Structures are given as C-alpha cells and as structure tokens.
C-alpha cells in the first residue's frame, strides 16, 4: 500500500498548475500583456481600424506642448487638492462621531456607508438633478435659508469641477470613515485613561494622543485618496451629460472638468487616437507609481507607530 503522505506525481507536478491556470491566463492576457502593449502603443500613432505607425516619443512630446493637456493635468490637480482635505477631514469627523458606545451607532455607520455601495451612474444622475440651477433642491434650499440665488453648479466652468468634488466627498466619506474607525479602535484605552487622570480634556486627548497614534491610518487614507482622485472618471462622465448644463460635452463645460482619465477615454475611444491615449495612461501610471513608492518608502519614517 502506498504511503498516504506521498503525493502522486500528478498531484505534485500537474495539479498545482491546474489550480492556478485560469488566474495565470488572466495575469498574462489581461494584465501583463496589456501593460507592455500599452507602452508600445504610446510610441505609435494608432487607430484600431487603420492600424499604426511608429513615431517614437512624439506622443509624449505632443503632451508636453499641448495646451489642452496642460489644462487637463491642472484640472486633475485641482480636483485632488480640493478633494484631499475635504475627504480626509470629513471622514475622520464621521469616524470620531460613530466611534462611540451610544446606542444606534450601527445604524448610523450603515447609513454613512450607503453611498459607497451605490452605483455612481445613478448617484451622479441624482446629484445632477439636485444641483439643477433653476429647479434643483439645493438651490431652492439656498434661496430659502440664505436668501441668495445659488450658483450654477455643473452649468458653469467656474463651479463645475468643485461641484463634483463636493459630490465625491458625499460619495466616498463612508469608505474612509470605516478605515479611520478601525484605526481609532486600535488606540489603547490605557493611554486615554492615563491622560484623563492627568487632567487632559476630550479635545486635548484627541489632538495629543489619538491623532498622533492614528497617523499610520491617516497616511494610508491620504495616499489612497490621492490615487483615487487621479483616477476619477465615472462621476465626471455621468455628471457632464448634455442635460446637466450648457454645452455639456463629457468633461465640460468648456473643458473645465476634463480630467486625466476622461481625456484618456476621449482620445482612445472617441477620437481613436489610441497611441496618444496610451501615452496619457502611462503618465497616470507613473504618477500612481511614484505615490505608491512614496507610501512604501516613507511610511515607516513619517508615521508614528505606538
């Protein structure tokens, strides 16, 4: 009789590859292959229906000089810089509020998380209606409460991008809240008790003990918030529907909400300038890679672990 601890040759040499085969196919066909292909595309002028020709670094050179791309880059940066503090502070506030032994916290957490699971296609459509300059609920409330006429929100190039920042805060604060909550619950009670004995009030305890101990979590939330802002797409695509405002092309009005991924999408799939789109995608890739490296590299140094 064979020893039951001895695997057969099949189990040892063949079976493992049967287990991982689907994932390996996916890894090469849908991940690694496309990453390399994309890089090759970025050195070509490529139209899916006419084929391509090699043009070296011309796409990158064009991006460097293209005024439209400068604006796109600037829009993405503006979005990130506005969204970062609002998103981080609001979700930290939510986490502090629901990190409590009072009754009903489970319900409030569930409510605050609801937008996170909701389809952006629907939520964006709803917010475009709420923000309708003439008949939307938001401007009606502004009129009633503040007595002034509300802004044009998505209708004006001056306010459109910022409107999306606000909606995005509403959409995502529940997500970072959960992460902050986990961090808050990791703060040792003894530290807080000791500070309380020393006479530190609630506010002082928060800023002197909780916040420093929370810094790994805060650092993580900041990183992930930046990466996600660079990749914003769904919300802009939905909220710049023609009915949302004057001249409402995707990324409009007047290119004011044309961010990096919207531009990749338009170039690659609307104008079929796939080489140019791929070059933009690689710029995004490099940005995200730099931030991820910063995360790995500096996590230990900046952050105060207990």
């Amino acid at each position: 009789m064979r020893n039951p601890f001895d695997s057969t040759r099949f189990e040892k040499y063949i079976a493992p590859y049967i287990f991982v085969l689907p994932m390996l196919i996916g890894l090469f066909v849908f991940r690694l292959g496309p990453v390399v292909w994309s890089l090759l595309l970025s050195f070509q002028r490529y139209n899916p229906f006419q084929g391509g020709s090699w043009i070296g670094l011309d796409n990158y050179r064009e991006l460097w000089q293209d005024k439209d791309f400068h604006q796109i880059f600037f829009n993405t940066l503006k979005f990130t810089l506005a969204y970062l503090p609002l998103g981080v502070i609001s979700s930290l506030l939510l986490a502090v509020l629901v990190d409590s032994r009072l009754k009903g916290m489970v319900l409030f957490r569930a409510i605050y998380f609801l937008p996170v699971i909701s389809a952006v296609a629907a939520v964006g459509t709803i917010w475009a209606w709420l923000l309708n300059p003439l008949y939307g609920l938001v401007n009606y409330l502004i009129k009633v409460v503040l007595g002034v006429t509300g802004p044009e929100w998505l209708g004006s190039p001056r306010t459109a991008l910022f409107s999306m920042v606000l909606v995005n805060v509403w959409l995502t604060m529940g997500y970072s809240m959960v992460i902050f909550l986990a961090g808050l619950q990791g703060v040792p009670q003894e530290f807080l008790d000791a500070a309380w004995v020393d006479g530190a009030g609630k506010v002082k305890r928060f800023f002197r003990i909780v916040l420093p101990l929370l810094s790994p979590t805060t650092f993580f939330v900041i990183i992930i918030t930046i990466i996600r802002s660079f990749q914003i797409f769904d919300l802009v695509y939905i909220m710049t529907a023609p009915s949302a405002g004057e001249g409402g092309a995707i990324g409009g009005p007047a290119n004011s909400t044309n961010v990096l991924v919207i531009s990749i999408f338009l170039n690659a799939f609307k104008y079929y300038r796939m080489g140019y789109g791929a070059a933009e995608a690689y710029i995004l890739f490099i940005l995200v890679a730099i931030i991820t490296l910063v995360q790995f590299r500096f996590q230990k140094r900046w952050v105060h672990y207990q």
Partner: protein
Amino acid sequence: MISAQKRAKTLLLRALHYLTLVGIATVVLVPFLWMLSTSLKGSGVLQEIPPRLVPEKFFWNNYSEVLFKHHFLRYSVNSVYVALMAGIGQLFTCSLAGFAFARLKFWGRDFFFALLLATMMIPLQVMIIPEFLIMLKLGWVDHPLFLALIVPSWLAGSFGTFLLRQFFMTIPRDLEDAGRIDGCSIFVIYRRIFLPLSMPALATLFIFAVMSSWNDLLRPILYLSSQKMMTLTIGLATFSRQYDVNENLKMAGSLFTLLPLAILYGFAQKYFVQGITLSGLKG
C-alpha cells in the same frame, strides 16, 4: 450639586452628538429620498417652486414606463446575469488559485504571486486600451453572453485570489493532513475541507464581485453598444443623456439601478464593508 451639573453637561453633549449624527445622516439620505420623491411625480410638477417632498399625486406609471418602454427591465435582467456570472465565476477561479498559492508547492509560485500583487497596483486605465483591442479582435463587443464583461473578471480576480489565499493560510494544517491520511486527493481536500471552512471569506468575495460588476460603468461603455445588450449603469447613462427625458423618469431609472444592490446591502452589510475596505487596504 456638582454631580447634577455634570449630568446635565453629559446629557447636553450626548444630545449634541446625536443631533450631529442625525444631521449628517440627513445629508446622506436626502438625495435618495429626493430620487424616490421625484420618481413618483408627474412631468408637470417638476419645475414647481416650492418643490414638494411628498408628491400631490403619485404617478406609479413612471415605473412601468421606464421598465417596459425604456427597457430598464431588460437592463436589469442583463445586470443580474452579468453580476451573478462574475460572482460565481470568481468564486471558482479565485479559490482555486488562492488554494494553490496558500497550500501547494510548485515551481514559480512565489514569483507568480508577487506578479499578481504587483499588477493589483497598476491603474486599470493603463490596461484598458489593449483590453479593448483584444475584445475587438475576439468579437466580444456586444457578445450575447457578455463575455467581454465576465471573462476579465473571472481571469483577473487578483484581489479575490489574494483574499482567499490569506484566509486559506489560516486553516490548520492538521485538517489537511487528516484528509491525506484518509486518502483524499488534493482536489477533494480543496473541495471538502477548505471551501466549507471558508464560507465567510467566500461570501465577502462573492458580494464584492457582484457589487463591482453591478456598479461598473467603464467596461459596459466600451463593450455594450446595442440597446438590448446594455446593463443598468450604461442604460441609465445613455437614457439620461437624451435631452428630452424628464427628471422623473431619470429618477425612476436611478431607483431601479440602485434598489437591488441596496436591498442586498440591507441583508449582507458586513460583507460589503469587509470586501470594500480590504480591497482598498491591499493598495
């Protein structure tokens, strides 16, 4: 006296705490309520000032109009099919690969696993243009079985593989050895020991896969163009883009897009939160 004062202060703080919580909950919920309210209004009262929260007259017809005349029933069926296929398929592929990475020894294991982790950090946009070209070559655009949406999620579920691998690593080796002593093959050990013990992790992955697929917008935009083949997200986006569609119908369409997942969220909230936060935590 002092204790009474202190109690009053505690009570006041508690009241303030709740007031803030309720205030924020209102801000979170009002858009959904407003969607519900608008979806039941007649077209004539949409521009009414002041707007009413509860419509004077309920136009239930809006729902049947959106479902039947504007194809949202069809979109829903498509979305359910795609989401279930993505969810079930990922349970298979990710658990198989996760098991191999956690428990089997084979040439290249750590290398492939490292590659899988590395690709999780690459933005989708870097890969989507070649992916589109692949789908075009395969003829999967507007494929009747939605292969362009389903197959990538089956084969490239790196998050699910990672999640299940971590979970499988926590299962005691004694159980595996016991199975081997009984003469079980490796497939039987996977099927009869590891899967039954991993129900919470499998549920988390299933919910996460269903949700990602249900809410996905980019791939449906690229791969679904004929109206009959649309899922809810792209169907709603296309519907809302038409300039002559009234807000009440748009809101009814949004309702049908949100409701199924919201109901699922009511029953399986824990798994939603787990899947979403873990998928973020991996980077």
